[in-house]
């Protein structure tokens, strides 16, 4: 029983990390429909920045906030320069551009910080174990679960339910027509991209305990992010949340129970889920 609880917690924590780190991609790729392979790059940039600041003595949460902001600004700049001409060019051009951008990210971080793993120290009050009564458990993982939940509620209320969300979907569906009903599409996209990249940066910081930072981060975990967004249903926060938790818990339990087939678990699960629900677990209304 105790073990089951721990496995469940582990699964939840892992799922939350997946969610936290992918939620930004749900914004840029899910909502804005930009095939944003550079998502990991923004996350990584956020993580590196926070690591640097913490090393320089900035407190953890301040560093996380600043890094989130910085990743957002970086995203804003990227949006106005290289992404804006991209929206009308189709998916393949977007693949090429964001792949190139990712390469540049990797090279830049290698150049600035070398190839080593960068440690992002977590504050001591989160670093230790807590006593659950029947055994101890890493505090940080509980923290991850809480942060994941809060983040989900936040984005859900802000984006899914609001007129902002509807405007954004309108602009993505048909930018020409969105302009014709008075939506400032350019500004809307810039803001949204900033949000997406800020979320990426935030994920890079908060998730660094599990998804360790090194320059190759941008590509190493990319598939993981894509999986969550696709299984959840493109552009659905509820979907990516459910997908992340499902994948996290099922994979963790599977690894514990059947170590032999651990390697196949995640993608076998993805395969089955997507064949079962090609539009994702909880797709947006218009495709359900």
């Amino acid at each position: 029983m105790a073990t089951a609880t721990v496995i469940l917690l582990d699964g939840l924590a892992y799922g939350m990390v997946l969610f936290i780190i992918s939620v930004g991609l749900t914004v840029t790729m899910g909502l804005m429909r930009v095939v944003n392979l550079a998502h990991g790059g923004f996350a990584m940039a956020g993580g590196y920045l926070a690591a640097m600041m913490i090393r320089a003595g900035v407190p953890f949460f301040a560093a996380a906030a600043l890094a989130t902001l910085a990743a957002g600004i970086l995203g804003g700049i990227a949006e106005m320069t290289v992404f804006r001409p991209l929206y009308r060019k189709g998916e393949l051009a977007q693949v090429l551009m964001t792949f190139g951008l990712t390469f540049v990210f990797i090279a830049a971080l290698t150049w600035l910080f070398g190839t080593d793993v960068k440690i992002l120290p977590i504050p001591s009050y989160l670093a230790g174990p807590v006593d659950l009564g029947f055994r101890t458990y890493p505090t940080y993982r509980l923290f991850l679960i809480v942060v994941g939940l809060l983040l989900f509620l936040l984005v859900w209320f802000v984006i899914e339910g609001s007129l902002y969300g509807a405007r954004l979907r309108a602009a993505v569906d048909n930018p020409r027509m969105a302009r014709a009903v008075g939506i400032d599409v350019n500004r809307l996209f810039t803001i949204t991209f900033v949000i997406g990249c800020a979320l990426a940066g935030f994920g890079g910081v908060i998730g660094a305990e599990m998804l360790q930072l090194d320059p190759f981060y941008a590509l190493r975990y990319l598939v993981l992010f894509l999986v969550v967004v696709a299984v959840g249903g493109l552009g659905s926060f509820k979907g990516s949340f459910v997908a992340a938790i499902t994948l996290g818990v099922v994979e963790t339990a599977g690894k514990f129970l059947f170590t032999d087939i651990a390697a196949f678990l995640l993608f076998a699960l993805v395969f089955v889920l997507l064949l079962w629900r090609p539009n994702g677990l909880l797709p947006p209304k218009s495709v359900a």
Partner: protein
Amino acid sequence: MSLGLGVENLSAGYGPTVVLDGLSLEVPPGGTLAVLGRNGVGKTTLLATLMGLTTLHHGTIKLGEQAIEGLPTHVRNRIGLGYVPQEREIFPSLTAEENLAVSFHEGGWSIEAVFDLFPALKERRHNTGNRLSGGEQQMLAIGRALVGAPRVLLLDEPLEGLAPIVIEALVEALTRIQRESGVTMILVEQKAELALSLTRDAVILDRGRIVFRGSSAALKADEATQAQLLGVAAKRR
């Protein structure tokens, strides 16, 4: 407050292609203009150009006293241009209600008022755009323009796909709006007879140029011109 719309020597098209060629016209404040012409003469291009959705080569567009040809599309909408595109261009992933909500500007029709005009739409308010019937989409496209507080309405074949009884209601409503708030209106329509009865003035386009201008009533009576420029005589054989 109603505004007039003036176009001077307008040349526009798609990329380097020129479709409208040195076109000028004027609609006085509160005026109504029917734009007629066969397939492919540039009617849609004219309205799209007014909205800033095509490539403008040269010419000026004035809304009241203000030159607007340099303004981005969304600003044109906000200062009073309401647009019903020919292909409806409903946002497929938004519900009917959201389609209206994102288009709403202060002073426009309320969403409920649109639903009163099109009761059928009200029943489908939670359907996403891609799950509305063709006619429902058309109603929504019109409603979307109305909630945007338009001072000039640009209607590109707004009656297409609507049931006769709905057309009746719509015609009534348009007449009423026109009378009450003096909205300026440019109407592109294939059903010439209907268009002419709804408008005060009319132009006929051919290959990007105006080949006829006059009052709607006069044109309605002038079957010879209609036959010659629109080919409608065949219909009333």
